[in-house]
């Protein structure tokens, strides 16, 4: 865990209320997809750091990218900072996605799915499915880039991206297209499939081995059902109000089916044991 003032090197608006901030920080070298940073405000009236998931990290350049929606004081303040200004960062935090597991499944020994595909031609080849709902997309973009660098073929990754509407802009879509086949869903039908992103993925007859998802709770519930139906492993990234971000305050917990390792009471810390959980191990 590193705590430091990081310099902003790039500040961009991607869509209505969605911003991309790149910072120079030692945190980049240690960051994995699915992890997050706690961003401090400059205001003495707003003392809690805000958890923001990492959208990309370049260890060699030492740059970390955050993509976030402005929802309150902390994120608005971050979006208004200029290049060259410094921001108080703490991270990387949380467990991250089990990316190695996906790499192993997609590049390793012949799996049962491959023989399935020869017998069932209608099932589209897709081994890794990323499902993003709105501002849940950034950590999955980081993951898609990581998977590609680890040798996973683009055709083995599908990214299903859900947005409210295409009008404010389908942020990060083009970047996903570099790493994965993409499926777009919008609530209002202004682009791609009209309706829920999980239904869009299901409608494409995908039979993934492993699913990674981040988005609002109703979407994560649908992901869990989809995973149970298709027999895929599913890992979901949860969001919760946090105070410390490191596991000390027990402010952010989620109900687990088994006793959690910290308190033995089926209440795992989202910031420490998570934010990524096996969908079958949490109550949604």
């Amino acid at each position, binding site marked *: *865990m*590193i*705590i430091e003032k990081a310099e902003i090197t790039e500040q961009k608006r991607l869509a209505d209320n969605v911003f991309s901030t790149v910072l120079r920080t030692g945190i980049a070298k240690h960051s994995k997809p699915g992890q997050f940073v706690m961003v*401090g405000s400059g205001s*003495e*009236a*707003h*003392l*809690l*750091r805000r958890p923001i998931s990492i959208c990309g990290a370049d260890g060699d350049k030492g740059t970390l990218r955050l993509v976030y929606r402005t929802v309150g004081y902390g994120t608005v303040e971050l979006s208004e900072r200029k290049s060259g200004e410094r921001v108080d960062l*703490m991270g990387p935090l949380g467990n991250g996605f089990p990316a190695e597991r996906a790499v192993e499944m997609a590049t390793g020994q012949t799996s049962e799915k491959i023989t399935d595909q020869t017998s069932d031609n209608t099932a589209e080849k897709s081994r890794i499915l990323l499902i993003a709902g709105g501002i849940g997309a950034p950590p999955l973009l980081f993951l898609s880039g990581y998977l590609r660098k680890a040798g996973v073929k683009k055709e083995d990754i599908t990214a299903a991206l859900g947005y409210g509407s295409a009008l404010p802009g389908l942020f990060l879509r083009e970047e996903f297209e570099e790493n994965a086949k993409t499926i777009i869903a919008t609530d209002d039908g202004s682009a791609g499939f009209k309706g829920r992103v999980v239904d869009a993925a299901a409608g494409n007859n995908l039979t993934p081995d492993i699913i990674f998802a981040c988005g609002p709770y109703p979407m994560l519930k649908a992901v869990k059902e989809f995973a149970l139906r298709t027999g895929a492993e599913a890992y979901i990234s949860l969001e*919760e*109000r*946090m*105070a*410390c*971000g*490191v*596991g*000390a*305050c*027990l*402010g*952010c*917990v*989620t109900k687990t089916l088994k006793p959690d390792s*910290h*308190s*033995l*009471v*089926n*209440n795992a810390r989202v910031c*420490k044991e998570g934010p990524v959980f096996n969908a079958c191990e949490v109550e949604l």
Partner: protein
Amino acid sequence: MEKGKETKISVNIAGIRFKNPVMNASGTFGSGMEYAEAVDLNKLGAVVTKGVSPEPWQGNPVPRVAETPSGMLNAIGLQNPGVEKFIERDLSFLSGYDTNVIVNVCGHTEDEYLKVVSRLKGIDRVDMLELNFSCPNVKEGGIAFGLDPVKLEKVTEKIKREADKPVIVKLSPNVTDISEMARAAEAGGADAISLINTITGMKIDINRRCFALANITGGLSGPAIRPIAVRMVYQAAGAVKIPVIGMGGITNGEDAIEFLMAGATAVAVGMYNFRDPFSMLKIIDEIKEFLEENGIGDIGEITGCLSKS
């Protein structure tokens, strides 16, 4: 002050020496484990653990925390693994550090406090006990003792008989007369008192028409409550002879010295650890700098310099 002589910032509470007067407030630092990677625990006056009950406690539903102006509300509900796991994991971890360990004890009933205290008997790594009679987020027990001076005195007395370590009684600010509560703790045999715990508060999300916390109410902490805390430390310190550990919204050395001058022998940093995990270390340095700049050789010279007694 003699030239070349080291400024003395160590303090003594109930016969226990603290290398400096700065510790964390219970519940804001775990048992130090989560911060140890970044913060050198050996430099702290003490680590005060999160509340420990006899059995694991579930805590409250989420959301458990909400930011408020210069502060925050919390209603964690004392989620903890219970005393057995605490001894096995947390105290073993703390054995690797040269700092005092104060175990915060919580329970629903008198019997539950006694169970924890008796289980901790004979364990050398525990230097002191802090009795949590002031958490506003647990429905039964706890706070019930903290709001009634007669009950507070009785339960303190019983626990004192069972304890083999000095006992600190942590007081709730949610009372009309803090002096009365301080005197009750002293009468029950407490070796020290600590205050203030959080102040009961509420926040409403007007857009969603709901409470910000699932528990509806929560405990307010942070700089927003500091003037109330300083006032209560001043009143409590003036009412008793036992040492006082002061806390409530401390963010820097200046804040800490306010508490010392109001009558606290030591101070605790709570919410500000979330903002700046290094804040306790900075506060230790800032206290020292203040003493040196003002030619004060011993921190004891400012403790209670404005207190009533």
